[in-house]
């Protein structure tokens, strides 16, 4: 396929720009002009449409096929949620902040308030802010809330504890908020080493960030104890909601002892994930942290109408207006449509699917932590490695066979990791066809390993040289 620049023919255009009837301004000084005109592509509308339609057909998405990318929760979102998102396109966000404005946007304000209440109910928190624009932004907001809490108590704590299986954004968010990171290794039972955790805990620790179930797809049986140990030392406990999909309607993090949570609307609650974004990472807190939530807050008056109030003790604004509103509208529709029973079914089916996948594949693939998993399971290609086949080779082979590969080489605490998350929206038939190809890959690894090294062979480009791409980076396009 050609680049759009290669399709360019001088003078060709898709539109005719009207002759300007505005008098010409003085030309830019020579020093500000480029020496030659930019070599922008000149194509007709039809060339353009065919080019981008052609590109789109080379795209892979959950709309075209199974996308078992572990840790990412690439579930299918019903198209009706897109309609919910577009319902409010005419409502300008600044209206809610103008004098007399809130009475004109009661619908959107009630939706924000309603979503906050839904998320508080689901997570067991007391209040929620919808401002953060992504999961990592939610982490940053949550950690800033925690910092504000300690500061208000006259404490200047230095450390944030994270287990080594945590998402990389956890330590990054805490470090950006000014904390030093203490990493706790994984114990043989697949979760944070409790003894190492106890040893690291002291009155200088501001917070512990936990993902539960963790990145290995394992629910931490010691979670209540971890919260207790942290609280005894005056530290707060942060719940990374990336894997909330596994426990909807089953466990409420707030009931277990967590003080702060972020949820990924774009993973768990029916809004697009990946290129389809944008994201949304609402943050929920227990009552002792409510004063530090970002400003402003949507409030419900005694007469049942909604207003906007400043939140003076809070950490300030973390986004314009109230966050990614169209995404919130989708999530509100998703939660309202599914209701309590529906959300419970979501988590049950997500966990059942992952366990089915785990049970069928563990004959051929090494399962480092062989216990009932939650919404995802992590294999290792260590058996295939004996024949010189790496996780990346299996991943590339899956592309040839029509599947998006699972996540590979993550989490970092599993060698040659292959991390599979089927999500609740996939049928047994789809999973069976994926399992068949995974088993076939194991067979090829045993008998004809070189075939896997050559994969993929059906794609527009074959195996990319990732090392060279990283070492000889060329991101500059000369126009």
């Amino acid at each position, binding site marked *: 396929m050609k680049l759009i620049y290669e399709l360019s023919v001088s003078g060709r255009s898709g539109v005719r720009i009207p002759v300007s009837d505005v008098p010409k301004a003085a030309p830019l000084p020579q020093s500000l002009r480029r020496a030659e005109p930019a070599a922008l592509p000149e194509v007709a509308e039809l060339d353009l449409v065919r080019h981008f339609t052609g590109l789109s057909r080379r795209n892979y998405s959950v709309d075209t096929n199974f996308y078992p990318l572990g840790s990412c929760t690439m579930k299918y979102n019903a198209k009706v949620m897109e309609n919910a998102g577009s319902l409010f396109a005419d409502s300008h966000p600044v209206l809610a902040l103008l004098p007399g404005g809130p009475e004109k946007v009661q619908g959107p304000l009630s939706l924000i308030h309603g979503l906050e209440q839904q998320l508080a109910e689901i997570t067991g928190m007391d209040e929620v802010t919808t401002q953060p624009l992504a999961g990592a932004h939610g982490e940053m907001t949550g950690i800033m809330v925690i910092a504000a809490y300690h500061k208000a108590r006259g404490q200047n704590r230095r450390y944030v504890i994270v287990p080594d299986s945590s998402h*990389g954004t956890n330590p990054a968010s805490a470090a950006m908020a000014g904390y030093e990171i203490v990493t706790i290794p994984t114990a043989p039972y697949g979760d944070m080493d409790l003894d190492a955790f106890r040893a690291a805990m002291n009155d200088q620790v501001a917070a512990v960030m936990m993902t539960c179930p963790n990145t290995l797809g394992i629910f931490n049986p010691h979670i209540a104890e971890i919260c207790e140990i942290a609280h005894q030392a005056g530290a707060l406990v942060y719940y990374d909601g990336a894997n909330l999909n596994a426990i909807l309607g089953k466990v409420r993090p707030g009931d277990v002892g967590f003080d702060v949570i972020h949820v990924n609307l774009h993973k768990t609650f029916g809004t697009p994930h990946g290129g389809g974004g944008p994201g949304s990472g609402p943050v929920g807190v227990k009552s002792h942290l409510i004063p530090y939530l970002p400003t402003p807050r949507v409030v419900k008056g005694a007469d049942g109408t909604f207003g906007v109030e400043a939140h003076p003790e809070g950490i300030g604004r973390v986004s314009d207006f109230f966050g990614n509103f169209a995404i919130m509208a989708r999530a509100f529709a998703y939660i309202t449509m599914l209701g309590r029973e529906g959300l419970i079914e979501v988590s049950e089916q997500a966990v059942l699917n992952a366990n089915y996948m785990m049970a069928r594949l563990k004959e051929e693939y090494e399962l480092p932590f062989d216990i009932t998993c939650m919404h995802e399971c992590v294999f290792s290609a260590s058996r295939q490695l004996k024949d010189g086949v790496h996780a990346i080779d299996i991943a590339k082979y899956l592309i040839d066979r029509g599947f998006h590969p699972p996540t590979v080489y993550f989490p970092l605490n599993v060698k040659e990791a292959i991390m599979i998350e089927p999500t609740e929206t996939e049928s047994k038939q789809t999973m069976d066809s994926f399992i068949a190809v995974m088993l076939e890959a194991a067979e090829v690894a045993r008998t004809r390993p070189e075939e896997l090294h050559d994969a993929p062979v059906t794609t527009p480009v074959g195996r990319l040289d990732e*090392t060279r791409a*990283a*070492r000889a980076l060329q991101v500059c396009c000369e126009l």
Partner: protein
Amino acid sequence: MAKYYTKEHEWVELDGATGTVGISEHAAHELGDITFVELPKIGKAVKQFDTLAGIESVKAASDIYAPVSGKVVAVNDALDAAPELVNESAEEKGWVCRLEGVDAGELAALMDAAAYQQFLKGLE
């Protein structure tokens, strides 16, 4: 002087109070093709087991921890242009930096080559 190793797979080799630091052959192999080494700033003071530098490969980005306390007095600039030196020669040409003011007593918390090899066997 002999090399001493950490559980996080760094090595240090002392010459008086100056220690040369890098990552082990094993670590380089496990990381795969190294694409970038984030060298520490000259003058940076580190405590033993604190984060010293960063290293990225096609598989992962990792921290390099200081095997001993000291002050950075030299860095291996060659790694800027040729990070693959770490893959080719992790424990010689692929050294990362030199630390000054090292207390040899801290070596007690590290492993010698034989103990490190034994440690690696335990990881398999």
